[in-house]
């Protein structure tokens, strides 16, 4: 064995055979490793587009739908017998959509994932919540204050069980999204390294051959070099463009959407607290504090007259991160929010300073759609935010949509080029070897 090895390295044909084997292994390894690394990134990019971003958005939608259901339920309750059909429909729509989103998310989530546990919790609590709301409604129709107590109990369940579970779900999904983004964008060091080693080996073999044989070109080895170079170039171009597209999809889509989701939830929390204050009918001051906390999270506690860009909070942050196309919608939302805040303060004065509960309630919700109330200003705010979210979601899809295909094509190309390079190298060295017979 040792003798055969010694002979293989000592004699020129043996060295040629060895070089051929080494080059074949290197080029095939280059193709395989590059294809494998690109495929891993293609899969991560595919997960970003098909799973983690939709699931992250889905979780945020569940959270928002639940908060909206709670808000709408209190609006309907405050309007009592005057509750318009639209309000009732919206409440039912919210619950139906939330249930649908929960089952969709559950179908796409593995059984052992912590997200699945939160989805199960939501699935169990949602019917309990809606049962309590119906009890509240029935009691309210009888004109007894027990209805209000039930609605406050239901809302408390929403605020302490359902919404935190949905928030936790969103956090888990956002973490998965961040992980998938990192996987998809990670730099394929090993593939680049092996490309360099393979090219160096090819060049070294060619230089050595030139010195020994005085033949300038070996077509086979030249072809192999070209194939490896092409593979490396494809790897570089696909890596750079897809990395850029993914970063853009995060910068203009996923990241601003997350900020926007936070702002939308703050808006809903504020609206829910505003309604619950009137449901409680002055029996507790805690909902005014909840309103203050939600609006502070939305636009900060500082000067409420300052331009939105100079405030702190989730809305200014969403505006700051928003791509140019979504900015006008967000500025409109900020404007509507200011109107809403003004109406809220006026209603609060009516109730606390003028002791006119009914007038304050009428300034907050009314069955008459024409009149400007806190509720209509809230709806305008929410609508503008929804519009901005639509723009950002499209931005995300446009930017990230094709990346996994680009990466997968590059992976296939690298594998084929690796095999081609190996074949070419073996062919080229085979010619030289034939000269020894």
């Amino acid at each position, binding site marked *: 064995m040792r003798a055969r090895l010694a002979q293989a390295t000592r004699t020129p044909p043996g060295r040629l055979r060895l070089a051929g084997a080494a080059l074949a292994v290197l080029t095939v390894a280059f193709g395989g490793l590059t294809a494998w690394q690109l495929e891993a990134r293609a899969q991560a990019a595919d997960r970003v587009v098909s799973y983690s971003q939709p699931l992250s958005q889905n979780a945020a939608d569940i959270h928002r739908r639940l908060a909206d259901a709670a808000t709408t339920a209190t609006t309907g309750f405050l309007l009592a017998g005057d509750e318009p059909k639209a309000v009732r429909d919206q409440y039912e729509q919210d619950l139906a959509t939330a249930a649908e989103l929960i089952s969709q998310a559950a179908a796409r989530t593995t059984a052992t994932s912590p997200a699945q546990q939160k989805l199960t919790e939501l699935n169990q609590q949602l019917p309990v919540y809606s049962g309590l709301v119906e009890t509240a409604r029935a009691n309210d129709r009888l004109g007894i204050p027990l209805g209000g107590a039930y609605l406050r109990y239901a809302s408390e369940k929403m605020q302490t069980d359902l919404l935190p579970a949905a928030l936790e779900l969103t956090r888990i999904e956002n973490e998965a999204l961040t992980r998938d983004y990192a996987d998809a964008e990670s730099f394929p060091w090993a593939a680049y390294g092996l490309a360099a080693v393979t090219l160096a080996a090819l060049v070294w073999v060619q230089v050595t051959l030139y010195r020994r044989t005085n033949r300038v070109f070996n077509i086979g080895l030249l072809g192999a070099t070209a194939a490896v170079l092409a593979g490396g170039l494809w790897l570089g171009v696909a890596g750079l463009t897809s990395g850029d597209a993914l970063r853009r999809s995060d910068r203009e889509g996923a990241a601003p959407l997350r900020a926007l989701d936070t702002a939308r939830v703050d808006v809903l929390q504020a609206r829910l607290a505003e309604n619950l204050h009137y449901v409680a*009918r002055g029996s507790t*001051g805690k909902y005014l504090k909840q309103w203050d906390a939600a609006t502070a999270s939305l636009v900060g506690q500082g000067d409420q007259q300052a331009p939105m860009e100079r405030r702190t909070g989730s809305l200014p942050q969403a505006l700051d991160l928003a791509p140019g196309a979504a900015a006008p919608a967000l500025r409109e939302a900020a404007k509507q929010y200011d109107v809403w805040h003004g109406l809220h303060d006026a209603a609060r004065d009516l109730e606390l300073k003028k002791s006119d509960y009914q007038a304050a309630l009428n300034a907050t919700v009314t069955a008459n759609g024409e009149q400007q109330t806190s509720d209509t200003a809230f709806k305008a705010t929410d609508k503008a935010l929804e519009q901005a979210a639509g723009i950002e979601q499209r931005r995300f899809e446009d930017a990230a949509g094709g990346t996994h295909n680009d990466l997968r094509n590059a992976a296939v190309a690298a594998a084929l080029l690796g095999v081609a390079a190996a074949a070419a190298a073996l062919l080229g060295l085979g010619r030289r070897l034939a000269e020894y017979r």
Partner: protein
Amino acid sequence: MRSRTVRTRPAAALALLTAAAAVLGAGAPSGAAPGTTRTAQQAQQALQEQKDGCKPVPVPPSATDGPSVKAIKSKGVLVIGVDQNSYHWGARNPNTGNLEGFDIDLAKRIGRDVMGDEKKVVLKPVATADRIPALTSTDGSGVDLIVRTMTINCDNLDKVAFSQPYFNIKQRVLVPHSSKAANVDDAITGKTVCAASGSVAWKVLDAKRTAKRIVQVDNQLDCLVRMQLGQVDATMTDDELAAGQSAQDQTVRLVDGFEQPETIGVAMRQDRTDLTARVNQVISDFYRDRGWENSFEKWVQPYLPDGSKDPSLYWPVN
């Protein structure tokens, strides 16, 4: 009105004694205490006051306007703090938007008698915890009177003044019909009991230490929600609020027995003695012209358990 001699036989029930005193009291001029009859309840009340080391200074009723009443009249509006969550005491009817109940009747009567016009009265909902701050605040957002089942006790007397008492209250226990508990101790011992946080009921439960667990909620009505959902076995609250609860749910009942008899009154600032005298006059008139009894029959009596429907059990002896 018919007068009755007080029996001295030991068998004489507390109820009968109270009734007698109430009738005597009501017959006296301006509703002042007769002063000669001591009933068991009076004795108990005196004992309580002695124990607590405080006793309200009685302010004789007066129909004349003093400086504070004149100031309110020149302001043109009398602001009365009320509840809008206590069914049949002070509650907003969600279908009409109107406040209604026993306390609301009294508040309106005070407004009508003092201001001469019901329209010059503003009924302002006040949270339990805000009752005293609303009276003592000086920023213009406060109230002149509180008519909101406010207990006359030493803690409150320290900070505000009270009219003469207008209702006797006791802490009672509500249980679902299915419960086998016969009396207060049965219903509480080893059970999960609900009470509004900071309420007298909570203090009583906390002092007794026989309940397995005390569930604290913001409002006594939240206890009924939890009892309907099977989260608590019993609820302790004032008998008047308990009556409000059983009016909203026919499947709960009051058990026999009570704890901590007290009285409630109209609260106001301590530096307005003339207003206190004026309110005392209204309360006396309210009782004398049967307004009190009419309101009692309308809002409270139908929901009281059999055997404790007698109005004289609830009119405090002055």
